[in-house]
């Protein structure tokens, strides 16, 4: 029994001693934490110190190790690392990476080689931001500097710079970059280790694209490489809102070159005309641009949704409708079976964009269907269908039916609101208005059938809803009138009763 107690006591003492040993901070590190500047102020700020205290023993040990090995030599350098306030997993990656530790010390690095916290491009190159680096998808996956640069990040000091990089002209001629990234990204078995769903055909697509042709065939440095869109040390997944290829940031990323007339000078379209530089400006005003950039609707298309990403190219005449139909499938399907399909093919017109435009797609309006001069249908028909009366009649029918439903919807919605405010039950009216709204939407889609009968079938429930709503509104108004009459009768009765009481009172008081 006594022996047991002694053994337990010994074990407890041993555990406590072990904890004491790990919790003890290295004297050199402790000195750095307490170091003061010339004005007597502690160099490590309170936030940094609090962060340090919250670190687990393993991370403190890694920090001590870096200090003992003179990778971290100054309290200012230690402060920079603590100021990142990284989560333990990332901090561990950072502390095991001697390259970054060394290249984040401004005392021993030139500004070009220094990873700094500053986001000021004057003090260090944009791709040398320490905060970006620790968020880099490669860094987070454990692919340290050595993955691209070579060398041993755990070695105390020294470089073995990457052999695959061209020794000369690698800054000016960037064609090597795509092949360099593709060493891993075109290798399915390698990529599977990190992200099995990531495609590995980027290089093949790129080579086939105008970007690839310009870079690899014409050796024109204005063409983009992987890093032009994805960044260098701060590469983030495409779904990360801070990524340069996150959907709402794609237009600006593409526009960085495509809106720059100097960069785009000399590039031409297939017909020989100069490549325009107003796509971004037009896109911003379009329904798609406003949905994506102003409302943050990630379902709205960015440049890459129509043009592709790693193999971007303008969709050809035949493929415009295929691009659009990825989202607007009903419209595309109706158009495919319409008379217009044949006519458009004969004229070699790009289907959707002929009426709706491409980058500056505006919100459609019902006036487009009118037949008077200045309207889309009317103008085109006068020129190409030679005022075929049947076509004009169909267009007029579309326009009138939709306008009638739209006007009725607007009027009845306002009436329903007023009736609801008067306390009437407008639920049946609201139900009919919902039917009308749905049919209106459907009818606008069915315009793309360019067929009187098909459109009529789609619009019929809406026309019925207009009639029903009219009946219900009339009924609600009658109900309100009934209430008013009821009130008037009640007031008359109460008034008579009051009069009788008053007469009685007067008689009694006499």
């Amino acid at each position, binding site marked *: 029994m006594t022996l047991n107690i002694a053994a337990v006591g010994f074990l407890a003492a041993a555990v406590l001693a072990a904890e004491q040993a790990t919790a003890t901070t290295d004297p050199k590190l402790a000195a750095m934490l307490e170091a003061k500047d010339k004005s007597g102020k502690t160099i490590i700020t309170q936030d940094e110190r609090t962060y340090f205290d919250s670190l687990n023993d393993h991370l403190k040990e890694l920090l001590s190790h870096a200090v003992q090995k003179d990778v971290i030599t100054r309290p200012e350098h230690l402060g920079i690392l603590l100021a990142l306030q990284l989560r333990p997993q990332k901090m561990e990656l950072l502390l095991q990476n001697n390259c970054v530790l060394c290249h984040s010390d401004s005392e021993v690095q030139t500004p070009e080689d220094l990873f700094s916290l500053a986001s000021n491009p004057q003090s260090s190159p944009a791709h040398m931001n320490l905060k970006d680096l620790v968020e880099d998808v490669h860094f987070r996956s454990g692919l340290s500097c050595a993955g691209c640069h070579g060398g041993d990040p755990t070695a105390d000091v020294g470089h073995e710079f990457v052999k695959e990089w061209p020794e000369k002209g690698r800054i000016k001629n960037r064609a090597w970059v795509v092949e360099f990234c593709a060493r891993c990204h075109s290798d399915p078995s390698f990529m599977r280790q990190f992200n099995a769903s990531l495609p590995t055909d980027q290089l093949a697509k790129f080579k086939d694209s105008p970007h690839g042709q310009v870079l690899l065939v014409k050796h024109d440095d204005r063409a983009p490489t992987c890093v032009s869109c994805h960044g260098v040390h701060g590469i983030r997944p495409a779904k990360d809102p801070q990524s340069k290829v996150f959907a709402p940031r794609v237009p600006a990323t593409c526009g960085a070159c495509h809106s720059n007339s100097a960069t785009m000078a000399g590039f031409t379209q297939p017909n020989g005309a100069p490549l325009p530089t107003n796509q971004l400006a037009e896109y911003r005003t379009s329904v798609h641009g406003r949905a994506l950039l102003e409302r943050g609707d990630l379902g709205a298309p960015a440049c890459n949704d129509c043009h592709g990403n790693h193999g971007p190219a303008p969709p050809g005449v035949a493929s415009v409708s295929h691009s659009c139909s990825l989202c607007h499938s009903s419209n595309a399907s109706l158009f495919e079976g319409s008379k217009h399909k044949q006519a458009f093919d004969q004229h070699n017109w790009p289907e959707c964009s002929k009426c709706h435009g491409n980058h500056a797609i505006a919100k459609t309006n019902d006036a487009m269907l009118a037949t008077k001069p200045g309207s889309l249908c009317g103008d085109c028909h006068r020129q190409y269908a030679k005022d075929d009366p049947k076509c004009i009649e169909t267009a007029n029918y579309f326009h009138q039916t939709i306008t009638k439903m739209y006007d009725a919807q607007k009027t009845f919605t306002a009436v329903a609101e007023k009736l609801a*405010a*008067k306390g009437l*039950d407008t639920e049946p009216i609201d139900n009919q208005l919902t039917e009308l709204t749905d049919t209106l939407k459907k009818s606008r889609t069915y315009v793309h059938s360019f067929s009187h009968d098909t459109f009529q079938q789609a619009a019929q429930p809406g026309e019925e809803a207009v009639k029903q709503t009219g009946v219900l509104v009339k009924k609600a108004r009658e109900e309100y009138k009934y209430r008013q009459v009821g*009130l008037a009768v*009640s007031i008359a009765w109460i008034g008579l009763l*009051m009069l009788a009481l008053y007469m009685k*009172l007067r008689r009694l008081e006499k």
Partner: protein
Amino acid sequence: MNDPEKGGEQPRGLRGWLDRRYQLTPLFEFLQHKEVPLGSHWMGWYYLGGVTMFFFIVQVITGALLLMYYQPGEATAYESIHFLTTKVPFGWLIRSIHSWSAHLMIIALLLHMFSTMMLKAYRPPREVTWVSGYLLFLLTMGFGFSGYLLPWNKLAYFATTVGTNIVRSIPLLGNWLLQVLRGGQDVSINTLYRFFAAHVVLLPLAFVGVIVLHVILIQRQGMAPPLGAKAAPRGMKFFPSFALRDVLLWLACLMVLGTLAVFLPYGPGIPGMDWELGQKADPFAPAYAGIKPEWYFLWEYQLLKEFPPHLFGLEGPQVCLFVIGILFGIWAAIPWLDRRAYRDRWSPGFTDLAWAALLFLTFLTLMGWDIGAGGAGEELTAMHNVARVCAWWTVAAAAVVVVVRYWRFQHRWFVLTGAVLLQVTLHGLMGLSYLVAATISLVLAAIAIAVSYFMGSTPEERRSS
């Protein structure tokens, strides 16, 4: 008169039948002889109690009709009210009358209470009548608060969340009381069950008990005669003259009620007086801006906002609740605090207190309504704008009140009204914080009262003596 023992004629018919069994003659005789005192003041004030009771009766009748369809429950409360107002014949009318009548009852009750205060009708021997009336006032607030949640719509849910949260600030008991009130940590369907039970059982039982006491006391002691007169110089027969006038007024109220219910079925559309059903409550939906309590709670809501998060080492809301508690305590104890009225003498200070209380409530209520916030940009600027515009309205109202009191009623004691006006000016027009302005005003008022006390009697006192 018809005393059989004195050889009088025995009543016949139903009255005789009842009288033989229940000896009602003394009661009838009491009522026949009962008189309402007439004095120097307007007689209309005497009808306000009756009008309040009329609205309460309407509440009971329409409430019973609503109960026939209302089903408390997560999936039924909102739906049953929706069904009642859209599908049940005249269901909309019953709900509309119930809601309008609730608000009109509170207006009538407040008018009744303040007129009693101004006429000093609380003086002996009617102290208990005042206290019972005060209890009825509290119970009516309880009716309003508990009834608000019952439709289980979005506005009611969030307003109740904000409202019940206030009790959390009560020292020591706060959390426990919150649990009791809500039936859990948050407002949930358990809260609805509690509020429903309170609204249709507990509060009506308490209310009927207190109102019976209140009416018995009034019938027993009669209405208060004008100040200074031990007995009324002349009177009006309660039966039939006063009672028939009462009924005439009730019928007029019924007309007004019906008209409002038909033309404004969801209320006048001002915050705190709007009962459109809207959307169903969703405990998981985020709270939205502009949640306001009913108009009669707005002054407390605004006063809570005027307190900083911490004051005197306590939480701001705790101090605020303490202040509100003191104000309510003073109001309840007025019959004992007003020593001059106790001795049947003119008490201008307490008349002024009533007017000051009205102006104090007006300023806070207007601010609670965000009057003057339209078009303001920054939140702080909006707050200043609201305080400024509300201050001007309050000052304008006060100017009218003071002029009328001075010229029409020859009042000469305005210390408390002045203190409230000073506070309104310092806060609303000069930008001082509400509490600093209140402190300065209270200190100056205290000095003025002390000076007035040591200087001797007031002009009114001299006049009355």
